C-alpha cells in the first residue's frame, strides 16, 4: 500500500522576529485520519507555528502545502476556506447570540434585503449538531451553555467546511472526565472521515491515549517525530527538553520552624470547599491540580482578594480576617500572581517603580519619595535575582518574560514577607531562568520563609516542594510528603480519584 498523501505539510518553515529566530526550519506532515500530537515546552514555537499556519504571520522561508498545492495563508478565514480549522484554547464565541448564529458567524444565509434566512440557518445547524450528538439545539443562547458544550459549538464551526485538518490547542483544560470522553469520540469520528487532527497538549496521559504520532519542537527547532506506540513519556520528555527529567525529590537540610499559616475548613462558594493545611516557616508547600481545581482561588483568598464563605485563617497562631491586599501585605503575606502582565506589573512604568510599588508609602523623605532608597532596593534585587535590564529606568514592558517575572518576585521579596505565595512561578519562562527560580525558592525556605508554590507543571512541583497538596475540583484530595509522592499517585489525586489516605 502506498503512503497516503498528507492532508497538510509544512516544509522548512522559518520565522524570525527582531532578535529571535522563533521557527528554525520546521517541517511537519499530517496524514489523513491520524491524530498527530505537537509537543514542546512553553516557548518552543508551537503557537508561532500555528500562527504561521493560520496566516496570522507569513513565514520568512518555507512552504505550506495543503493536499498537493503549496498555498499562501492570508488569515484565519482563508485558512478555513482551504480546509484548515483551529479550535483555540480561548473560545471565540459571541455568547449573546444563538448556537446557529455563532456557527455561521460571518456567513449567515440570506434572503432578500439582508434578512437572515432563519429556517435554512437552523436546519443546517441542527444537521451538524446531530453529527456531534450534542444535547442542545440551534436556537440555544451560547452564553447559557457549559464550557464543554461551547467547545462543541467551536468544533461544529469547523464542520461547516470540508475540513482537511483540525487543530486542537489544549482542548481538555476545562473539561471533566466525562466531557473528555465525548471529545475523544468526536475526534475519532473526524478521523474516520479522513480528517487530519493536530493535537497540542502537555497532558501525557491523553497524548498516549489518543494520538498516533508525536512531533516535538524545542527552541524553534524540529526535533523529530515518533510513533506513539513506539515511545514513552520519558522518550518524549527527553526530546522536549534534551535531558531526562530531574525528578529528584527535595532534600531538606534545615529544620522547619513554627506554623506560620494555618487554614481550617476554608471554603469559598463553589470555588473550593473545606480546605485544611498548615504551613511552617522554612517549608515549601506545593499546590498541584488542573485548571479550575481552586488553587489560585485559595491564594486570592489568603491575599484578601476574595471573601471566604466559611472557615478560618490563622497567622502565627492567631485567627485573622484578611480584608484586602493592603491588609494581607500588612500582615506579612505576599502574592506573586499568576499573570504577571495583567496582575503583577504596570507595564508602562519603569523597573524601579514597579519593584517598590507596595512599599512606596514607607520609602519617604519628608513628603516625597526617597528615590535613592528605591534605587538601592532595585539594585539589591537586581543582583540577587540576576535581572537583565539596561537600568532601572527601563520600561518593564520591554523586558523578557523571565526578567519581568524576576521583577515581580523581587518586588515581593523586598517586602520580607513571612508567608510568600507564588502562583505559577515559571510560566512562560526559558529553561535557564526556570532553574534559577527553583533554586531561589529552595534557598528562601532555607532562610526561614514560609512558601506556597502553585504550579501546573509536575516536574516543578515535585522539585521544589516539601509537601504537595493535591487538589481536584475545589477539594483537597490528599496532601503528600515528598517521600510518599509519585507521579502516579499525584496524577490520580488531581484527577479526582480517591485514595484511602486522607489529607
Amino acid at each position, binding site marked *: 500500500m502506498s503512503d497516503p498523501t498528507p492532508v497538510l505539510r509544512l516544509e522548512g518553515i522559518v520565522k524570525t522576529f527582531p532578535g529571535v529566530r522563533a521557527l528554525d526550519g520546521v517541517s511537519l506532515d499530517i496524514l489523513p485520519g491520524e491524530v498527530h500530537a505537537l509537543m514542546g515546552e512553553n516557548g518552543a514555537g508551537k503557537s508561532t507555528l500555528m500562527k504561521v499556519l493560520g496566516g496570522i504571520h507569513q513565514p520568512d522561508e518555507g512552504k505550506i502545502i495543503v493536499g498537493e498545492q503549496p498555498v499562501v495563508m492570508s488569515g484565519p478565514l482563508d485558512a478555513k476556506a482551504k480546509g484548515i480549522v483551529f479550535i483555540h484554547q480561548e473560545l471565540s464565541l459571541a455568547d449573546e447570540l444563538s448556537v446557529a448564529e455563532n456557527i455561521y458567524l460571518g456567513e449567515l444565509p440570506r434572503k432578500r434585503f439582508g434578512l437572515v434566512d432563519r429556517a435554512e440557518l437552523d436546519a443546517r445547524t441542527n444537521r451538524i449538531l446531530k453529527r456531534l450528538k450534542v444535547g442542545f439545539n440551534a436556537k440555544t443562547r451560547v452564553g447559557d451553555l457549559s464550557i464543554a458544550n461551547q467547545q462543541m459549538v467551536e468544533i461544529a464551526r469547523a464542520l461547516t467546511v470540508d475540513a482537511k485538518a483540525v487543530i486542537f490547542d489544549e482542548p481538555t483544560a476545562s473539561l471533566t472526565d466525562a466531557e473528555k470522553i465525548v471529545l475523544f469520540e468526536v475526534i475519532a469520528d473526524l478521523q474516520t472521515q479522513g480528517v487530519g487532527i493536530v493535537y497540542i497538549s502537555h497532558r501525557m496521559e491523553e497524548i498516549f491515549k489518543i494520538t498516533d504520532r508525536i512531533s516535538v519542537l524545542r527552541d524553534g527547532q524540529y526535533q523529530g517525530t515518533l510513533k506513539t506506540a513506539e515511545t514513552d513519556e520519558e522518550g518524549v520528555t527527553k526530546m522536549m527538553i534534551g535531558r531526562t527529567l530531574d525528578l529528584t525529590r527535595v532534600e531538606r537540610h534545615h529544620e522547619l520552624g513554627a506554623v506560620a499559616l494555618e487554614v481550617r475548613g476554608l471554603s469559598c462558594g463553589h470555588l473550593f470547599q473545606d480546605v485544611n493545611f498548615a504551613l511552617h516557616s522554612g517549608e515549601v508547600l506545593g499546590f498541584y491540580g488542573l485548571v479550575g481545581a481552586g488553587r489560585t482561588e485559595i491564594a486570592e483568598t489568603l491575599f484578601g482578594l476574595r471573601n471566604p464563605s466559611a472557615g478560618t485563617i490563622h497567622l502565627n497562631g492567631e485567627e485573622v480576617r484578611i480584608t484586602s*491586599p493592603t491588609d494581607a*501585605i500588612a500582615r506579612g503575606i505576599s502574592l506573586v500572581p499568576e499573570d504577571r502582565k*495583567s496582575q503583577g506589573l*504596570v*507595564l*508602562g512604568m519603569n523597573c524601579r*517603580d514597579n519593584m517598590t510599588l*507596595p512599599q*512606596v508609602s514607607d520609602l519617604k523623605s519628608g513628603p516625597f519619595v526617597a528615590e535613592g532608597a528605591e534605587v538601592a532596593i532595585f539594585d539589591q534585587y537586581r543582583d540577587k535575582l540576576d535581572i537583565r535590564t*539596561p537600568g532601572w529606568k527601563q520600561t518593564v514592558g520591554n523586558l523578557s518574560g523571565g526578567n519581568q517575572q524576576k521583577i515581580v518576585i523581587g518586588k515581593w521579596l523586598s517586602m520580607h514577607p513571612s508567608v510568600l505565595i507564588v502562583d505559577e512561578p515559571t510560566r512562560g519562562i526559558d529553561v535557564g531562568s526556570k532553574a534559577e527560580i527553583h533554586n531561589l525558592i529552595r534557598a528562601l525556605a532555607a532562610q526561614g520563609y514560609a512558601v506556597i508554590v502553585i504550579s501546573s507543571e509536575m516536574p516543578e512541583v515535585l522539585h521544589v516542594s516539601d509537601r504537595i497538596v493535591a487538589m481536584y475540583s475545589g477539594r483537597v484530595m490528599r496532601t503528600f510528603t515528598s517521600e510518599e509522592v509519585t507521579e502516579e499517585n499525584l496524577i490520580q489525586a488531581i484527577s479526582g480519584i480517591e485514595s484511602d489516605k486522607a489529607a
Partner: protein
Amino acid sequence: MTTLTQKDVGTFLAKQGILIAFAIFMIGFALANQRFIQIDNIAGVMRSSAILGVMALGVTFVVIGGNLDLSVGSMMSFSTIVVLDLHDKLGPALAIPAMFALTLLLGAFIGFLVGYLRLNSLIVTLGMLSAIHGLTLTWSGGKNMDIDDKAGTWFSFFGQDRIMSIPVPILIFALVAVVLSLLLAKTPFGRKVYAVGGNGQAATFSGIPRARIVFMTYLISAFCVATAGLLQASRSMGSQNTVGQGMELEVLAAVILGGASLMGGAGTVFKTVIGVLILGFIQNGLLLVGLDFYVQYIVTWIIIILAVWLDIAAKRGRLWSPIA
C-alpha cells in the same frame, strides 16, 4: 538601544509633530497679524489661559488615574456663581472657603461614584454636568450674579491685581502647577495614581487602595475647579451662570495636547501646562486673524481627534487603524 527603528521615528514625530505644527501655526498667525507677537497680547493670552489651565491641572490627575471628568465646566460655573453670591451674603473671607467646601463636596460625590462604586466615569460625569448645571440655575434663580459694591472689596485681588507686575492669576496658576507637579511626580500618592491608571488590577494586587486613589483625584480636580471659579469671579466681579459651559472639552483638549493618554498611566503636569498654552495661543491666533469665534470649536474638534490619533498611531506603529 542603538538602532532607531521606524517605530521610534514615528513616535518622535507624533509627539513632536504637535510642537512642530504649533510652531508653524504661530509663525502663520504672526505673519497674518503683527499683534499676535506683541507683549501685551501674549500676556493677555497667558492670563486668560490661567483659568483654563488650573482646571486642566486637576483633570490631568483624573486622566492619569484612568478616568474622565466632563463635569468641570458646569462645576466651574457653579463655583463662580456661588462665590459671587456668597460674597454679598457672607463677605469674601467666608465666601471663599464656603465655595471651596461646596465644590469639594461635589467632587467627593463624583469620586465616590467612580472610585468606590466603580461606575463609568464618562456617563457619570456627563450626568453630573447636567445635574450641576441644574444646581447652578437653582442657586442663582436663573439670574446672573453680580457683586454689589465692586470697589469696596479686596475680592478682586485674585483676578485683577498684580504682584511684582505679574498678574495674580498667572502666579496662582504657576503655584498650583508647581505644587501639583511635585505631588504627582515626587510623592507616593502621585506614584500610586500612575499605577492605578496604568494597570488598576496590578495596582490592587500591589496593595494600593484603588478606590481611594481615584476618589482623591476627583477631589483634586474639584479643588482646581474651585480655584478657577475664584479667579473667574474675581476677574469679572459678576458672571452669567453659563460661564464655564463647554470648558470641559477645552480642558480635555489641553490635557490631550499635552500628551496625557486617555487610557491612563501617562502624562505630566508640565506637559499639560504646555498643552494649555498651545491651545490658548491657537485660539488667540484664530481670533486675531479675524475668524469667527466659533471656529475655535471646529479647531478644538480637529485638535482632539488629531492628537489622540497620533498618540494611538505611535503606540501601534501604524498610522491607519487595522480595523477591517
